[in-house]
């Protein structure tokens, strides 16, 4: 299948290497070929892919396979490290000014998510960082763009400088800065109109805005669904107005966001934020290491935990997380945990973050919800003892539960198997938590991967 996610693709490749004793030129070549295809399908620019593959190859050949790793783990490690490096270190924090407002300017192509992100940023800074935030509506071209910003700002109770559509964006920015300064705002966020990077007139306008208010941050919005051309867009914006950061938008879809890798690699501008949903809270700091984990099917555990903490009430979340991390849990816990995950909403976004569940299509989502219902029915047909200690399950018990729940023995086996997998996953997560990053050697396997 051509359009599996990169995660699935890499999982498949690594699987192929299982059982092979040594990294050889030929099996590595096959891996690299497949990684190339996977990266291209993830929309990483072909030039970036070339360099990536060459780097991985060089590193793999120059390095001895570590004693404690098997060859496939070694490749995983090299690919992971390389991906992480590609996504880049770099300063991904906003540098706040002390004696004057911090000015943030959002730029990008049409439809990349500037206005939505302006609202999310304002919310984040106001509610999480206690900043006094002012928005400026400088998109005087798209019909109702100002209405859109006004509505969002109104919802989160942030003031907007709105001078209508007959004033030039440069004048609006200047007036907004004056207001921000005079009224002691901490942050001014400038929402600009979408524009093509080849539209000289509009690019000049951006430059004028920039020169007249001297922003601390110029952030480019990059759509996670962007294709090969993302590098050209980013390069042109960077050349014209010197970007200080990138915001990846629409990462909540099933696009692999290869553009993030390309843009970072080509411009070396750090990625600072990622848009992970339509709601005002759905903006996250960008974590390069987590993104690399996620691409490799490690699952973004930390994001999951953070999201859980925000969306479930705090105590509840701590209990869940502790239980998840302790590795000690039974069938009841599994059921409860599955329900919680569902309660968190946007199961699609979350499932993707859970190790061992790399592939999420809409059908699978619907399927997993149905599966959960079935699990619940089956688990409810078990005795307390069975739920606490599933190891006691023999055939006769399975038959009883199957009959009691109106399911088949195969269904019961599925629940038990799932339980084993989940338990395994918990162990992985614990070691992940302890080391704070991907455990070296991966304990021999990724859950659900091999």
């Amino acid at each position: 299948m051509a359009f599996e996610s990169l995660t699935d693709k890499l999982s498949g490749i690594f699987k192929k290497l299982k059982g092979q004793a040594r990294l050889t030129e030929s099996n590595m070549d096959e891996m690299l070929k497949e990684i190339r295809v996977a990266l291209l399908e993830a929309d990483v620019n072909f030039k970036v892919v070339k360099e990536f593959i060459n780097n991985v190859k060089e590193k793999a050949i120059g390095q001895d396979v570590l004693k404690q790793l098997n060859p496939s783990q070694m490749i995983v490690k090299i690919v992971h490290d390389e991906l992480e490096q590609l996504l880049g270190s770099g300063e991904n924090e906003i540098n706040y000014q002390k004696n004057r407002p911090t000015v943030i300017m959002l730029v990008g192509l049409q439809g990349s998510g500037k206005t939505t992100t302006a609202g999310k940023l304002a919310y984040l800074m106001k509610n999480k960082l206690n900043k006094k935030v002012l928005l400026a509506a400088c998109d005087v071209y798209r019909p109702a763009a100002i209405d859109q910003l006004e509505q969002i700002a109104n919802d989160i109770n942030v003031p907007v400088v709105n001078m209508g559509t007959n004033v030039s964006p440069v004048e609006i920015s200047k007036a907004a800065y004056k207001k921000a300064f005079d009224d002691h705002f901490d942050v001014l966020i400038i929402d600009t109109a979408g524009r093509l990077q080849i539209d000289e007139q509009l690019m000049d306008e951006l430059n004028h805005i920039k020169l007249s208010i001297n922003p601390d941050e110029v952030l480019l919005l990059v759509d996670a669904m962007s294709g090969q051309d993302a590098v050209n867009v980013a390069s042109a914006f960077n050349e014209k107005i010197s970007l200080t950061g990138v915001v990846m938008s629409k990462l909540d879809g099933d696009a692999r966001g290869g553009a993030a890798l390309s843009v970072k690699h080509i411009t070396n501008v750090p990625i600072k934020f990622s848009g992970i949903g339509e709601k005002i809270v759905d903006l996250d700091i960008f974590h390069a290491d987590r993104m690399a984990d996620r691409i490799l099917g490690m699952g973004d555990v930390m994001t999951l935990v953070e999201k859980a903490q925000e969306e479930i009430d705090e105590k509840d979340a701590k209990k869940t997380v502790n239980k998840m991390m302790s590795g000690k849990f039974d069938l009841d816990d599994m059921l409860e945990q599955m329900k919680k995950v569902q309660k968190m909403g946007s199961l699609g976004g979350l499932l993707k973050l859970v190790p061992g569940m790399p592939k999420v299509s809409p059908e699978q989502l619907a399927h997993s919800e149905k599966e959960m219902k079935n699990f619940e029915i089956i688990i409810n047909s078990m005795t307390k003892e069975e739920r606490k200690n599933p190891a006691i399950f023999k055939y006769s018990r399975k038959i009883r539960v199957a009959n009691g729940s109106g399911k088949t023995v195969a269904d019961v086996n599925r629940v038990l198997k799932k339980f084993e997998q989940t338990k395994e996953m918990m162990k992985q997560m614990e070691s992940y938590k302890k080391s704070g990053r991907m455990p070296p050697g991966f304990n021999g396997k990724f859950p659900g991967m091999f």
Partner: protein
Amino acid sequence: MGLISFLKSKFKNKDKSVEEYSQGMEKSRANFSNRLETLSKKYRKVNEEYFDELEEILIESDIGVSLAVKTIERLLDESKKKKISDADQINELLVDILFEDYMSKGNDFHEIRFNENGPTVLLVVGVNGVGKTTTIAKLAKRYKDMNKKVLLVAADTFRAGAIEQLQTWANRLNIDIVTGSQNGDPASVAFDGMRRAKQTNADLVIVDTAGRLQTKQGLMDELGKINRVISKEIADAPHETFLIIDATTGQNGVSQAKAFSEVTKITGVVITKMDGTSKGGIILAIRDELSIPVRFIGLGEGLDHLKEFDLHKYLYGLCVK
């Protein structure tokens, strides 16, 4: 005669529409055809490396790895059969193959097919930020100019400012519009729209919907509901459902087309923002996998910059200097 020479002869006396295409796609074309040209200068006779580079050019246009590989394999095959090793001729053969592939996938038609009895309903869908509302304004103008009575239905009740955006266009174009309340049920707006269409004998009803990522099951279900409400009110409606695809879209475009096809019957793709530097090759991948024809192409911000998709002109714009 190869397609490029055919096109060259066909477009020797450029008519206005070719020029518009040509202008709109100037930036997309530049890179593609320049690389083809540089390539054929570099290699007078082709070798394996040449085909590798051609494959990269195709991949760079976002047509996707599998279609690129398939196309290059066929190119290798046919060039051997026809004993062609001249670089320019190989390039022509490549364009021929792309052309044939597209045409082999089914009919190629563009204008909205009007329902003979009663209003024709066009449902417009797509992910966030692809240009649905703007495209609707352009389509509304196009058919108003053809003396059709057009009605707009603002069923994007989710995104802030979406209703106002469509309302602004309706006012500018002096076209009737049905709106609901912000965060109201979009299906009920669609229902009102269908009722109004029947009452006022509208020729064409264009229903705007909220942008939705195809992975959001709840939102896709909502779209299914809108679709059902429309069918219930007007038989065989929606008669057309256009999926709007942004030219900058990468391989996710196919996933979009597949997922939207599951809840609505997509009858065409409209590719927007082709005036940028993106090549929009994803439309060829979508055609290849799902046989959906491209109906219109957005070549600029002006209201008249939405054109009928014409494969000849598209490839001409893409491949010919």
